């Protein structure tokens, strides 16, 4: 078997269509007879709906229907959406009604859907729907929501507590009793919105006498949508097909199930016509899940050398108005907390609370960037208090390179230990120290300081638990023309899965990459799938493709051996041709074998062979591979204006064996920029009444080209023992440590002013206040 493609910087097979405008995103699809929909959304953060008057909207020429919840069949009038990730610890697993019943709990919540000949008419009509609200008290700040006398985000609920979580292991009390030092840190984290450049979108077509309901959605998880929508509508899953076409970025929030994925099908079913709904950017700001505030209060117990003995504390997590995605976001903020450090004891509790703001679910990295930021804050504090170098304090605390597999002390839900499979955290740090010119920084800083410029450097390390199971299957099928088709459930939102899976398959079969095509993310084309979240597709789907391709190769060799009257051991494969070694004329192609295995009526099927040169595998990684990385940011702060410029950014990353280093670098660099955006720019602002204040790209700042530094990336390859390819996920390792690195660099630059940053994103205005005031301050949410 060759390794022509694995590990090579293969150009992407997706690109020819995408650079020529031939991509096919949801909004590019038109079905015959299709109508277009616009949602009517709440303008209030919390209110009771007294009445909805849609008469004027319905009377507008070109409007086919306006549906409120009451206009759908009675069975849906008291049926909130299905909780996709139920958990016993969810005290209030509250989901929304797909259209509001009698109460709205955040600005943007869907109240009605207008369906018309065109989007333009639907927009006109939506503006004519009059909703009479009785305002109710709103709670916006999670630190208020947790209090017993806080306004209730949902009228009639006992309190605002969604869940109380706790992660604990080791002897925490002893750790603190024995500590040479105890440091407390408090900080507020805020990650903002998703902002895939393509907003969400849904097309639904219901053909009850034919193939049932088809939903085209810009989703990361078509199978989750199928499960959830079928359950909600009371339909047979086999007659609900969900397709994700080209999707313009996901970054987490597109992994959930949204009201429109229920409402648009209901409208299409009622009208007997296909219906399309495309989210606009303002809707994206207020209705696509966000990742807002977390307040952390942590204490670190440290010995005299700066080694962590224990960590304890409390977190308040803003879940927004509903629970669209179980507890996956808050849990991923807690369990990865120790990161790359050997923390012997830990006890952290988290209150997950409702507020009257957009619902929350994971954004790139989920809670891991928050966990990394929290742990890096403690490490930074230890370094500052004990006057240790930023790199040195980390070296003292890392899980050692000979300590793998490393038992973190935590347990999975099934009681098994959470372990890190492999890694070399200090090795990664060495690489980034080298790459960033860390050793020469003090000189650069001193020179700049002499000119009145303030340079700073920040180190940040992380791990990423990647490749969550339980599977992501694939079928590999050789067609009679010799082309190889891969079918998988795994949806792509730009990661390049088609290329990646083709690379793995091409090597295993010894065929040319050009002879492979991938069909993915269509529940009608592959029976079972999970979805694209948590850096899991490379790990799971590649393993399945690898295994399926091996079965196909074995079957082909068996049949070729019979056909060529040779033994399997004497056969060799090159570029899709199987031949007998040393006998050039003795050969047969995969395509010829595929044809032999798929005869038409009356044709002979080779004895002992099943039809088709194909195999399906659900083989998966035997555990979650632990990726890791260390980053170093170098910044300059203008002490007059508070402007922060990231001058250079260096990454050493370890995601095991890389299938396509070019695409891995793409994930890392893009991820870092997202993390820099979190550090410096991205803040969703709500006023005290729960009105969102910055729902446009003039006021909500995303990273742009001129603000981003050169980003240098180097790799360490510590193969995962969990899967045959030795791979670990790479989708989020750029984002996870980045915010902490930038914030540490800013503090380092402003050391002469004793500036301690206790919240992000860090605005110039706040920095000016900190520089003038000295010491720490904290923004209100």
């Amino acid at each position, binding site marked *: 078997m060759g390794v022509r493609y694995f590990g090579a910087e293969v150009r992407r097979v997706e690109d020819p*269509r995408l650079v020529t405008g031939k991509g096919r995103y949801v909004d590019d699809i038109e079905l015959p007879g299709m109508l277009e929909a616009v949602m009517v959304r709440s303008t209030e953060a919390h209110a009771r709906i007294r009445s909805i008057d849609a008469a004027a909207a319905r009377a507008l020429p070109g409007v086919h229907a306006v549906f409120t919840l009451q206009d759908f069949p009675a069975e849906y009038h008291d049926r909130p959406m299905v909780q996709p990730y139920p958990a016993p610890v969810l005290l209030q697993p509250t989901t929304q009604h797909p259209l509001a019943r009698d109460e709205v709990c955040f600005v943007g919540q869907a109240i009605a859907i207008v369906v018309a000949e065109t989007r333009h008419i639907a927009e006109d009509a939506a503006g004519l729907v009059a909703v009479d609200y009785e305002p109710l008290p709103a709670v916006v700040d999670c630190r208020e929501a947790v209090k017993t006398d806080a306004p209730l985000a949902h009228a009639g609920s006992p309190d605002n507590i969604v869940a109380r979580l706790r992660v604990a292991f080791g002897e925490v009390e002893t750790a603190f009793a024995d500590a040479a030092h105890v440091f407390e840190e408090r900080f507020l984290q805020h990650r903002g919105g998703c*902002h*895939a450049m393509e907003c969400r979108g849904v097309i639904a077509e219901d053909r009850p006498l034919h193939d049932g309901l088809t939903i085209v959605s810009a989703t990361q998880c078509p199978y989750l949508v199928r499960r959830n929508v079928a359950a909600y509508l009371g339909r047979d899953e086999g007659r609900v097909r969900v397709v994700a076409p080209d999707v313009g970025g996901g970054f987490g929030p597109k992994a959930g199930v949204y009201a429109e994925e229920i409402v648009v099908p209901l409208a299409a079913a009622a009208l007997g016509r296909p219906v399309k709904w495309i989210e606009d950017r303002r809707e994206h700001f207020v209705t696509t899940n966000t990742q807002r505030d977390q307040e952390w209060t942590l204490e670190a117990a440290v010995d005299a050398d700066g080694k962590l003995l224990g960590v304890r504390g409390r977190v308040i997590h803003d879940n927004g108005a509903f629970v669209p995605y179980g507890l996956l976001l808050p849990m991923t903020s807690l369990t990865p907390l120790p990161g790359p450090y050997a923390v012997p004891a830990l006890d952290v509790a988290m209150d997950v609370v409702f507020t009257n703001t957009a619902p929350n679910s994971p954004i790139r990295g989920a809670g891991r960037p928050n966990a990394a930021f929290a742990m890096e804050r403690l490490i930074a504090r230890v370094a500052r208090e004990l006057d240790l170098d930023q790199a040195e304090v980390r070296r003292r605390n890392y899980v050692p390179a000979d300590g793998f597999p490393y038992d973190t002390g935590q347990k999975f839900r099934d009681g098994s230990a959470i372990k890190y499979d492999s890694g070399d955290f200090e090795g990664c740090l060495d690489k980034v120290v080298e790459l960033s010119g860390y050793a020469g920084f003090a000189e650069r800083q001193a020179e700049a300081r002499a000119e009145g410029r303030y340079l700073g450097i920040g180190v940040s390390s992380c791990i990423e638990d990647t490749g969550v199971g339980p599977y992501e299957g694939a079928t590999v099928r050789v067609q009679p023309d010799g082309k190889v088709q891969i079918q998988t459930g795994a949806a792509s939102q730009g990661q390049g899965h088609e290329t990646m899976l083709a690379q793995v398959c091409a090597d295993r079969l010894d065929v040319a990459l050009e002879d492979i095509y991938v069909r993915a993310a269509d529940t009608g084309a592959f029976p079972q799938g999970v979805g694209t979240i948590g850096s899991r597709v490379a790990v799971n789907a590649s393993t399945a493709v690898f295994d399926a391709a091996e079965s196909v190769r074995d079957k082909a060799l068996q049949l070729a051996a019979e056909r060529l009257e040779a033994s399997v051991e004497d056969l060799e494969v090159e570029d899709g041709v199987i031949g007998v070694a040393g006998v050039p004329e003795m050969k047969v192609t995969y395509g010829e074998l595929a044809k032999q295995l798929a005869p038409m009526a009356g044709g002979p099927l080779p004895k002992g062979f099943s039809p088709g040169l194909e195999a399906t595998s659900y083989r998966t990684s035997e555990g979650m591979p632990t990726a890791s990385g260390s980053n170093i940011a170098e910044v300059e702060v203008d002490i007059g204006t508070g402007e922060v410029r990231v001058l250079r950014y260096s990454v050493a990353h370890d995601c095991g064996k890389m299938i396509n280093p070019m695409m891995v670098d*793409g994930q890392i660099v893009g991820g870092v920029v997202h993390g820099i955006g979190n550090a410096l720019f991205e803040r969703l602002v709500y006023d005290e009444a729960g009105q969102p204040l910055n729902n446009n790209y003039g006021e909500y700042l995303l990273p742009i*080209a001129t603000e981003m530094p050169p980003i240098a990336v180097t790799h360490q390859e510590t193969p995962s023992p969990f899967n045959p390819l030795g791979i670990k996920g790479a989708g989020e390792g750029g984002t996870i440590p980045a915010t902490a690195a930038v914030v540490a660099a800013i503090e380092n630059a402003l050391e002469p002013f004793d500036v301690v940053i206790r919240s992000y994103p860090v605005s110039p205005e706040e920095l000016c206040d900190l520089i003038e005031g000295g010491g720490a301050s904290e923004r209100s949410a």
Partner: protein
Amino acid sequence: MKHTHRISLTVNGRPVETEVEDRLHLADFLRRELKLTGTHLGCEHGVCGACTVLVDGRAVRSCLMLAVQARGSDVTTVEGLAAEDGTLSPLQEAFREHHALQCGFCTPGMLTSLTAFLRDNPAPTDREVREAISGNICRCTGYQPIVAAALAATGDEAIEGEN
């Protein structure tokens, strides 16, 4: 009251003559009327740049311009950047070579913006390229490979190809 106007213009080298509603913006006209869905709408308030097309050679946000304003213009969309025979432009090739796209949604706007920029600035610096795309938001790539692709597409051979 629905008002319409008769307009004629050239789109990707082909003459178009049609009736358009006055409120129809150019992006919707291209996407909905001409089925040129390569032009993407990312924000519809003129910041993200995904909808950028060339109007008489200038990079323009087609969400901020009415179709009727394009009367008499020569419009080029992403579909018009490759040669008639499908050969990619050097910039399109460079995007592929340098992994300057992931999800591909901002890509049409990046390509049109840079096509105009590189025509007028055939030997730009890294900084100038960054300025040129500072009105185009990409959430996937971190911009670095886009800048690399633009710089790579400025060789002698590439400039010839841009014409």
